């Protein structure tokens, strides 16, 4: 079972969405986004109708992303558990809802213009995380600050 967070976990989701016609049906996504879980940062590259790349990166790579999603490991687990339980994020756990609920926001960016990719491609990114309902996730111990 893929461990969250890990490149393996994100690749498992990537493989699911890339073979899902419904994901393609949402339309093109062109964005480089990040997922920050404790001290770990993962870069997800979306191009055209696919997620084309997953890799673990460092703090300095955040500047090259359109935006990254950041919350505590416990909050990430709550979100993913909610998705697993319901098959998709329920009314209180969508990416946008979480973004508006966290004091510093869920979607963060060094660039006020590029951050808008969170809105433009919101449903595709939501679908990406919703795909985690199709795998059994285990969780890494609380990430240790590097």
């Amino acid at each position, binding site marked *: 079972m893929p461990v969250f967070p890990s490149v393996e976990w994100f690749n498992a989701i990537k493989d699911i969405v890339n073979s899902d016609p419904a994901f393609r049906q949402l*339309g093109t996504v062109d964005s480089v986004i990040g997922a920050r879980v404790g001290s770990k940062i993962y870069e997800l590259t979306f191009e055209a109708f696919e997620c084309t790349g997953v890799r673990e990166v460092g703090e300095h790579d955040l500047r090259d992303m359109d935006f990254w999603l950041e919350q505590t490991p416990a909050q990430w687990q709550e979100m993913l558990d909610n998705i697993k339980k319901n098959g998709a994020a329920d009314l209180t756990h969508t990416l946008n809802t979480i973004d508006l609920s966290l004091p510093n926001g869920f979607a963060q960016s060094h660039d006020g213009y590029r951050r808008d990719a969170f809105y*433009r491609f919101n449903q595709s990114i939501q679908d990406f995380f919703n795909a985690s309902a199709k795998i059994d996730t285990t969780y890494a111990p609380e990430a240790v600050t590097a």
Partner: protein
Amino acid sequence: MANETVAIPANVRAKAQEKQWPDDLVESALAAGATPEQLIGYMDQGISADQARQFLAAQAGGGPEPSKELADKAALVNWPIDLIKTALAAGAAETDLMRFMDMGITAEQAREFMAGGGAGQPQLDLSWMNVPTEWNTRAKPTKHGLTLEGINIGRYGEIPDVWPYQTEMPRGAVPIPGVESMGYSIFEKQEVWSDNCARLYEEAIQRRWRPATDVPWDTIQPLPDDLERAICQICTHISEKEQMEADVLGRWEPDISYGYHEVKLFLATTIFDNARAVEVFRKRALSNGGGLGIQSPGWGFRSIVDARNFTEMAVIQFVLHDSLTLMQYAYGEKYAKNPAEKFIFARAMQDKARIVDYGITHLKFVMMHRADRRDEMQRYLDKAEGMMLQDDKKDPATREAFAIYFGGGKDKIHEGLAIYREMRRKHVEQYLARLKWATIDRAERLDPGMRVFIQD
């Protein structure tokens, strides 16, 4: 009709050899008055040498014999037999000829028609095949398919700073003198351009959705009256302003000259997005036992409607107002009462983010190319922010409806008003951040009525 032998031009000879028309046939046709271009055209159409001979014979009074029925009918209506034979040789069907006669078409009219290229044998020009446009263009599809950006190759991708044509001639085509003006008023790239408008167009096309069938309408359950009234008022407000935006864009679209078709196409998708928003929010208002509410006083709308140049309109509509609408959609998504409303607000949010993107990238393009317009943009925003704040004072319905919706009921309106202020704060923060990216620092010049939202 001249019968002397004429010289066969080299291009006609080459075509005749390819299509197996003998020299004597070609010479006869040229002698009968056919132009080299016409002959090449006939050969390219697949007319055989035999057919060509029949036609020439008919022109000289020969041609296929008509049936007795046709001949009798022709005699009744005074169509000479040579006319019948010519028409048949040219490819006309007997049934068609008889029908023309029944319609009352005279022999003279029939001759005129055939001289103009009717009866199956058009008069050909074909000079258009030699226009000096860039040829051998081979745009290739990519992962995104074959996109607008992908076909901007060579001269077709040269987007001039000034477009010199008044007509609907496509960029890269050859103009014809004397074509009537379309009455465009926008000919400068800096007035409308953004470097990503072609990409935004493709994104808009790819990310379409269908309110009638994509929204999970059956997930809407009866709501308490105050919440239903609140969402219906919100839907009324949104429907109104999205229609207004579509109308405004629809008036500007014909002003933009054809050289900037990427912008025109993207704006067309925005009008479609506006229409979709009008549709879906009106549908929500009329789907759960409620109805529409009160219209908006529209103070903010006037600064958009009254804009005298495109960038003024774009800055006010797309950067200021649509930034707020985007936040309204984001907060609507968060506080949605059912999956249907969640879906609607989330999709509308995506659509709105595209036009905000265009607005801010267009503004940056203007700043990069016409830095002298910087203070002009600030003045537009001075005026527009003031007018938007008039709506705050004179439009309690929108504010209170959102507050009830966010708070979860009329009894929680004060909690909802706090959330409403938070939404306005986020709008101002994001608006300033976007402007900063476009090199406009508005922090010090922000209207005091908007500044209050970001002050602790």
